[in-house]
């Protein structure tokens, strides 16, 4: 009898007072080979983003730079700069740019935006590299992946 009782208590304790949340970010990654830059537009739910900023107490760019890391062939993180933000319908669009004369193919990526907030956070990255469309999915603890 103890087993069913424990199962019932677990059901009541399940975090469903609010509806099934979607712990995902979606990023559009593109390159400008003429100017030697790459650009990422990261879409995050604003309430989650504000929660993580309140917790980490850093400014948005610093947080994004720590969680969305582009690495060059030399193994060093490529510095990111902001190219603007906008907020619509509960979603923040966070734009960052970096210099890369060889485009995205010369870089590796580790995306862990909001993974420090939720265990089941997923970062989906859609990239256009040399005209070809590719997708990457990063979960908590995922390692950097080459974009080549």
């Amino acid at each position, binding site marked *: 009898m103890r087993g069913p009782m424990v199962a*019932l208590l677990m*059901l*009541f304790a*399940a*975090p*469903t*007072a*609010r*509806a*099934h*949340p*979607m*712990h*995902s*970010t*979606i990023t559009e990654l593109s390159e400008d080979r003429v100017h030697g830059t790459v650009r990422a537009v990261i*879409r995050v*739910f604003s309430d989650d983003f504000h929660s993580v900023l309140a917790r980490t107490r850093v400014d948005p760019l610093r947080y994004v730079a720590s969680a969305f890391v582009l690495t060059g062939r030399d193994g060093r993180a490529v510095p990111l700069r902001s190219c603007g933000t906008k907020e*619509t*319908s*509960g*979603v923040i669009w966070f734009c960052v740019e970096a210099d890369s004369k060889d485009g995205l193919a010369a870089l590796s990526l580790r995306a862990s935006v909001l993974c420090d907030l939720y265990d*089941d956070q*997923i970062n*989906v990255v*859609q990239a256009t590299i040399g005209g070809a*469309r*590719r*997708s*990457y*999915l990063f*979960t908590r603890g995922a390692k950097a992946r080459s974009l080549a």
Partner: protein
Amino acid sequence: MSELFTFMQLGFRHIVDVEAMDHILFLMVLAAIYRLRDAKNALWVITAFTVGHSITLALAVTGLLHLSSRVIEFLIPVTIVLTAIENLVVARKVQAQSWRSRYRPVLAGTFGLVHGAGFATYLQSLFVDRIAVPLFGFNVGIELGQVVVLVTAAMVLTGIDKLIERTPAVARGWSGLQLRTIGVSLVIGVVASVWAVQRSPW
């Protein structure tokens, strides 16, 4: 990795997650009246549910349908409660053969419309361009996730059946399937009722 496979993974992970307990319980309560040999019927019902939620998801993500997320979040546990009640009515009135009646896919499809609207409130903000492949992949992933949930539910329900077979009630003329349907529906119905109250927009 292809865009389709990425969004299939996203849909799959979305459904086989402890945070998806409302959808998992809905699938459980839908499956509560079936035995392993009824797997084909159960799969039809779950597919109807997928078709239902795909319709509202597509309408909402493309901006053709605007819904209040607070009302939808309330309606999702209500669909669970109504399915549990329907199970209890069926368990009392109908012979085992009629339990496969064809209105169940319609019921699941209709309630799927509500659950799809629940996904949509989150996804319409993220899917902004080139939505066809992501949306299709997400739905395929959800369907695969539901099959996994259903298989797990079948194993759990079979375990419950074995426990019930030992109870004196079976000897008093109740079938094991009837007792299981009543037990599972009551527990899930009560839990979903609590959620409905917690999520009430009024």
